[in-house]
């Protein structure tokens, strides 16, 4: 069995009296996509925030390459090659696209007191990486506040793909995207996996989850119900495990019965 690049062992996270995660263990392996499923409020975002250094676990351990680590900050996680697309995207509306893209990891040129932002490189790279996601950036100096929700989501994804050297974490990255853009993102996930990255992917859409996932971990009310290999579960089984999946199947049956009557 391949060793996990990034793993949680018996992690709990409490916010005051709220138990957001309880005794959860997961493992993301190089060259594999781990899909996190679960209802709203199940603790998925809390889990990935723990993995990306935003929250410190209240109990349990974070392991990188099998070694216990303490992630002090998101910067610490990024330095270790863990890049995340947060559900709220973590973009600053008043700043330009290029400034947002490199926020926290700005390239510089020149030495000593003349060290300055490598502005040309920033604009070029932003355009190129966004183009890979099918977004033609009109003007990298345009404020992010003027972008559409989908464009902003693509910016956050492009940024994480650019900086994620080892682990790529995506929290509902396709929620604001059209069919075409969503498939582009799925392709990006597959490409990252082929490059040997470990990918953790959260989505409510079975059509997005099933094609790219290697494993599924299901969270329910802060606990992990189990992890399944793709070969062990069918698409319908995954749908049933997903948020509201059961209801959807039932509804379909109900409607069928109604129209037959």
């Amino acid at each position: 069995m391949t060793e996990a690049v990034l793993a949680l062992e018996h992690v709990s996270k409490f916010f005051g009296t709220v138990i957001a995660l309880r005794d959860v263990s997961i493992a993301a392996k190089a060259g594999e996509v781990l899909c996190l499923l679960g209802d709203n409020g199940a603790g998925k975002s809390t889990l990935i925030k723990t993995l990306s250094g935003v929250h410190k676990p209240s109990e349990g351990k974070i392991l990188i390459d099998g070694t216990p680590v303490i992630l002090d900050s998101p910067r610490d996680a990024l330095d270790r090659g863990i890049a995340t697309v947060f559900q709220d995207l973590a973009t600053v509306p008043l700043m330009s696209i290029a400034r947002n893209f490199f926020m926290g990891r700005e390239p510089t040129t020149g030495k000593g007191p003349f060290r300055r932002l490598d502005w040309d490189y920033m604009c070029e790279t932003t355009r190129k990486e966004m183009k890979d996601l099918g977004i033609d950036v009109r003007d990298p100096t345009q404020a992010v506040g003027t972008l559409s929700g989908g464009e902003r989501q693509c910016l956050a994804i492009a940024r994480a793909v650019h900086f994620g050297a080892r682990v790529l974490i995506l929290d509902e990255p396709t929620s604001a995207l059209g069919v075409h853009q969503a498939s582009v993102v799925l392709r990006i996930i597959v490409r990252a996996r082929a490059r040997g990255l470990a990918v953790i992917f959260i989505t409510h859409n079975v059509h997005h989850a099933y094609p790219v996932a290697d494993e599924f971990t299901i969270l329910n009310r802060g606990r992990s119900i189990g992890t399944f290999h793709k070969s062990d579960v069918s698409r319908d089984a995954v749908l049933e495990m997903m948020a509201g999946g059961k209801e959807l199947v039932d509804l379909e049956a109900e409607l069928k019965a109604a129209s037959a009557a």
Partner: protein
Amino acid sequence: MNHQDVPATPAVPIESSTSAAMLARRDERVRKVSRWRQLMVRPEMGAIAGTILVFIFFLIVAGDSGMFSAKGMVNFLEVSAQLGILAAIAALLMIGGEFDLSVGSMIAFSSMVIAIPSIVWGWPLWACILLAFALSALVGFINGLIVVRTGLPSFIVTLAGLFVLRGLTLALTRGITNRTQVSGINELVATDPIGHFFSGVVFENFFQWMGKMGWIATRPDGLPLAQGMPVSVLWWIGLTAFATWILLRTRFGNWIFATGGDPVAARNVGVPVARVKILLFMAMAMTGTLFAAIQVLDSGSADTLRGTQKEFEAIIAVVVGGTLLTGGYGSAVGASFGALIFGTVQMGIFYTGVDTDWFKVFLGIMVLVAVLFNNYVRKRVTGSR
């Protein structure tokens, strides 16, 4: 390269240079508008326009009052410069999402840290100045640490600092000297190795030459009335240029915008938000010391009342300069124009002989207008989404 067409979507004003590579591959969806329209959404535009209006106004009503003689101009430039020094760094702090109400008291505190040891205890002046800088760095560090650790608004944290520092200054000064004023520093400046960084004038030869040419007024002995440019003006220009460089062209500048724009987002993508804020508070407090050093060495005395209300004047200059009170957007150049408006109007009212009480009325109204205008610009920049 055609410079007349520039991207039309309200470009984020903080990027002035458009790279050649970018222009070459311009998207057809970018509507072309005039350079004028693009300039209009830069944060400092309001202040620059305001400066022009103020100058035109006083040229008309006070053109022959001596306000625009060399001596008069040096006067209002000096007033503007002292505030502008504070405003340049206050702009960075406000763009970073915070402000410092304690800086006025910091000025008084630093004045006494410079004056008491040098006059009462006979320390060398340069050592006192360095001590004042070190202490203000410490106070700034504490301000910043409390703000980032507690998450309390800097308004309340530095309001506490405003009273604590002023009270401490009064208590210590009275305790040590039995007075609230310490004078006699003039004698120390001439022989001090760093005294001239903070006092006196520069370009004296140039001013004398202008006097000889008959361009500026001279005294009976042939020397010009305005002997030179006060060093504070150089500090003002230098600090504004420095702050602008930091904001627009450095990594730290990007962190300042990010920290003020959305601290949570900034932290999540790896910006060391706490470090940025603490450094900005330290820079602000140390700028208070610079202001104190300039005033004390220039006037030769320190007073426990020094710096009163400077915290508000600095905020006014910054806001008039187009910086959003809520952070994330603004400019140091704007702040320095804000300070220039402030200084010009203050001296202008003096020269026109209008009751100076009207200056406060003017200030209040100007702030309100500036905030409304900034709000409008912000909506344009973010596409009011």
